[in-house]
Structures are given as structure tokens and as C-alpha cells.
């Protein structure tokens, strides 16, 4: 049986990727509100996902305020698909 992607097998990182799956782009505040994570922790996890190439992070200034927006990459989408397939396989064997 394949091993679950360790990068996705974490509560907050999986939540971020799942949120980004259904939207084209989401900003930091949106992700923070939906995941109920702290700003510091969310930043760290976004960096990890970005470094792995699972998400694209864009930083810009909008109306004098910094804005961080994120979107899922093709690599991230494929990783989530593989992760879900792996989960199904695992749960299928257990149940």
C-alpha cells in the first residue's frame, strides 16, 4: 500500500489544500477564518506548501495594505487526488 503524503497528512495543511480545491484563489484572511488557525501557524504551513510547489502564493499591496493570496497548483491538485485515492484504499481494507 502506498504511504500517505506526509505533507498533506497534517490537519492544517490538508485543510488549506481542501479549501483551495474549490476556489480559484483565496486570501490569507479567508483561509485564517475558515481554518480558525493562528496567523503565525498559517504562515508557516503556507510556506511549506508553497516550497513543495503545491500552492502559489502571491504577495501584493492593495489599498496601502499587504495582501497574500494563494491558489492551488496542478502539482497540489494531483497530490490531493493521490492522497484521497490512498485514503480510500486504506479505508477500504480496514472496513
Amino acid at each position, binding site marked *: 500500500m502506498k504511504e*500517505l503524503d506526509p505533507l498533506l*497528512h*497534517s*490537519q*492544517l*495543511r*490538508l*485543510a488549506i489544500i*481542501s*479549501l483551495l*480545491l*474549490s*476556489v*480559484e*484563489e*483565496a*486570501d490569507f*484572511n*479567508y483561509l485564517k477564518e*475558515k*481554518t*480558525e*488557525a493562528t496567523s503565525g*501557524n498559517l504562515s*508557516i*504551513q503556507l510556506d511549506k506548501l508553497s516550497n513543495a510547489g503545491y500552492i502559489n502564493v502571491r504577495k501584493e499591496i*492593495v*489599498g496601502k*495594505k499587504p*495582501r497574500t493570496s494563494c491558489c492551488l497548483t496542478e502539482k497540489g491538485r494531483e497530490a*490531493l487526488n493521490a*492522497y*484521497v485515492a490512498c*485514503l480510500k484504499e*486504506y*479505508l477500504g481494507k*480496514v472496513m
Partner: protein
Amino acid sequence: MEDKKINEMESLELISDMIRKTKSEASMKQDYNAFLFYGYFTMLVSVTVWLFTLFTGEREYAFIWFAMFIPYLWTNFIGKQKGVEVVTYLKSSLGSIWKVIGSMFGLTVIAIVAIGVIVGKIDFSLMMPLSIIYAGIGTSMTGLVIKEKWFVWLPLMGLLAAVYMLLTGKYDNSWNLLFGLSFLVFMVIPAHIVRSKIQES
């Protein structure tokens, strides 16, 4: 939420929970303010131009119609200032539709001026039926995307005004009222119907 390990069952639950959380944005259950803003603004300009033309007899007051670019510029400016928290695929598609429609308005103005300079007569009267057609197509396409039949079919009623203008071919003051009326039919009325449906649900 923290950076902690979860079991397989919790993972699946988390994925479906997060997807569910984004559904409220994806379902387009917004308040349709943009349609009401454009619709009522058009009606205001429509009555203003009609009254000025009626009491002065000067058809040059039709140039007040250029105020129609104000809500377009305003919504773009405000959108950029505020920034948006989330862009759904639905919002993105609708944005693209209205970007094309907006470009058609702009290009028509440029074409009328450029061709007018060449032929020696700049006549903006054609802008009115064309604008009804453009805005009607945009509203219908929006209706198809968001699956709201009021937005799909009522623009066809508005198109009657455009066909009337094209057939008569000669601008008169009634066109101004007709223009506002058509926006009432295909923007304001469906927006209110859909808003009330959302509030009821």
C-alpha cells in the same frame, strides 16, 4: 486548527468539511447589488436625459449618457481598493463575461468616433440599441452561469426595445425612457426576484 497529525477517517471528514465551507461562496448566494446599482443608475440617467431633453428641446443632453461609465469605473475602483477575500471559479467566469461586455461598450464608442471622423458625422444614437443588446447578452449569460431563469429570459424582453430603436432608426426623446425601462426589466426586476428568493430560503 493546528499542525497535528490526524487519522485517515478524520482526514476524509476534514476534506469534505472544508469543501462544504467553500460552497456558500460558490453557490452565488450574493445580494446582486451590482445589478441593482447598474439598473437603478441607468434608470436615473434615463429619466434625467429625458427630462432635460423634454424641457429644453436640445438633444445634446443625450451626452449625459456617458455617465454610464461612472458605475463601471466606480465598481472597478472599489473592487481594487477593497481586494477580494476569495475568488471562486463562478466569480471568475462572470468577471470574464462582463470584462468582454465592458470592452464591447468601450470599443463601440471608439468605433463610432473613428468612423464618424472619417465620414464626417459622429452620431451616438446607435449606441443605445447596441448597449441594450450588449447588456442583455451579458445578463443572459450571467443567468445561464448562475442558473437563474429570470436573468436568462427577461433580457429578451429588454431586447424588444433595441429592435424597436433599430427599426425606427431615428433617435427621439422616447428612446431615453425606453432605455431605462429595458434596464428595469432585465436587471432590476430579476435582481429583486432572485434576492427575495434567497431571503425566503
